[in-house]
């Protein structure tokens, strides 16, 4: 979270993460080189340039698969949530490795003629009607442009300037980049590979990524479909109160999430013997606050650790972010939350569990 523009807010955790990821990528590329040189010898030996192209290309596609699996895995199992924390760093690393691949390819295949290498890349093959001779490089270039756009806007500065909604939509272009890259690999590298290893691995990767997203999406859709009707039959725009359950149903320092019939979710927290409610959507990247917990008296987003006070939805000073709050009450031993969101940062009265028990 930031109170203004600063360069990347590095901390020890981020530095260690970046060093580990860079070392893993370097190790993969070095290992790829070593194995290729050992296995393909004599007449089958490949030049260093070709091996570099294959090593960086496969490294970038593996990184993208990892990135795309983190989101749905975190939705399906809480144990994967920590992987979300620095996912953007992994994205920037993917772009850099893909850029190295693109530079090596352009230089090696198009850099020795009289035509501008980029122009040669775009115009040397126009067999768009052929599957086996398709100009797959175009697909890679389009994917690289998307990855660049995402890497360039990965900083919170852009997140704040573009607004979280626009930023999120922009970064969903990674799915388009993924489809383009699968086309790039299938119509390019795999066409020239007689070994079954590449096709099998690509197929397993595509099945894994698409299945995880479809399963996670289906789980979220089922949650949305279970919208809670108002206990007093009032429309959501007015004083509609939703049943949350008994206070004991809400784990201490955690939340129970209820879904209003309009599909928006409300996180109802229990902390210090009181019940409070806020929107389930974090002001940062829309993280699910209801899956976070109360740390140091503040609701903490499970995605990137942004914090808000339970009673007014304001971030603790010096931070200035605010989220919408909801009124809560306890009626006949049941927690109820008002479906109408109050303006971000509006203080609310917590419902005291002990007072309700003695009422």
């Amino acid at each position, binding site marked *: 979270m930031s109170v203004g523009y600063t360069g990347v807010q590095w901390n020890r955790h981020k530095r260690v993460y970046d060093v580990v990821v860079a070392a893993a990528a370097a190790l993969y590329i070095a290992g790829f080189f070593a194995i290729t040189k050992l296995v393909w010898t004599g007449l089958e030996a490949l030049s260093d340039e070709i091996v570099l192209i294959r090593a960086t290309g496969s490294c970038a596609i593996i990184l993208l698969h990892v990135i795309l699996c983190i989101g749905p895995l975190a939705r399906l199992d809480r144990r994967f949530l920590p992987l979300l924390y620095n996912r953007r760093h992994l994205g920037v690393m993917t772009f850099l490795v893909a850029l190295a691949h693109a530079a090596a390819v352009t230089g090696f295949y198009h850099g020795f003629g009289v035509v501008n290498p980029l122009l040669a890349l775009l115009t040397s093959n126009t067999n768009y009607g052929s599957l086996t001779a398709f100009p797959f490089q175009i697909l890679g270039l389009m994917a690289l442009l998307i990855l660049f756009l995402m890497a360039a806007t990965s900083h919170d500065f852009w997140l704040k300037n573009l607004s979280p909604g626009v930023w999120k939509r922009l970064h969903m272009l990674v799915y388009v980049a993924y489809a383009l890259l699968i086309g790039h690999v299938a*119509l390019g590298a795999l*066409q020239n*590979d*007689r070994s079954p290893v590449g096709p099998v691995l690509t197929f397993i990767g595509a099945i894994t990524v*698409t299945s995880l997203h479809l399963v996670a999406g289906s789980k979220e859709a089922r949650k949305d479909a279970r919208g809670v009707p108002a206990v007093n039959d009032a429309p959501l725009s007015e004083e509609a109160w939703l049943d949350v359950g008994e206070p004991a149903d809400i784990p201490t320092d955690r939340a129970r999430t209820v879904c209003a019939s309009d599909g928006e979710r409300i996180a109802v927290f229990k902390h210090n013997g009181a019940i409070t409610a806020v929107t389930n959507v974090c002001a940062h990247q829309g993280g699910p606050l209801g899956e976070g917990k109360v740390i140091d008296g503040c609701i903490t987003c499970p995605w990137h650790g942004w914090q808000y006070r339970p009673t007014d939805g304001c971030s603790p000073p010096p931070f200035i972010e605010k989220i919408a709050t909801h009124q809560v009450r306890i009626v006949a031993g049941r927690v109820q939350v008002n479906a109408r969101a109050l303006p971000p940062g509006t203080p609310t009265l917590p419902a005291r569990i002990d007072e309700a028990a003695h009422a």
Partner: protein
Amino acid sequence: MTRSHRRWHVVAWVVLAPLVLVVLVAALVARASVNSGLSGGERQRSAIPEGPR
């Protein structure tokens, strides 16, 4: 995430998942290297017309 974002995620993958798999399967079935019995480099070399060097 808001409901709108969740919906976009689902729509994106419902469209992209079959598209990705169809392109992948079609490309693998049509694989030039398997169908011609030649590797990419060999196909490239065989495509060079014979003539005086």
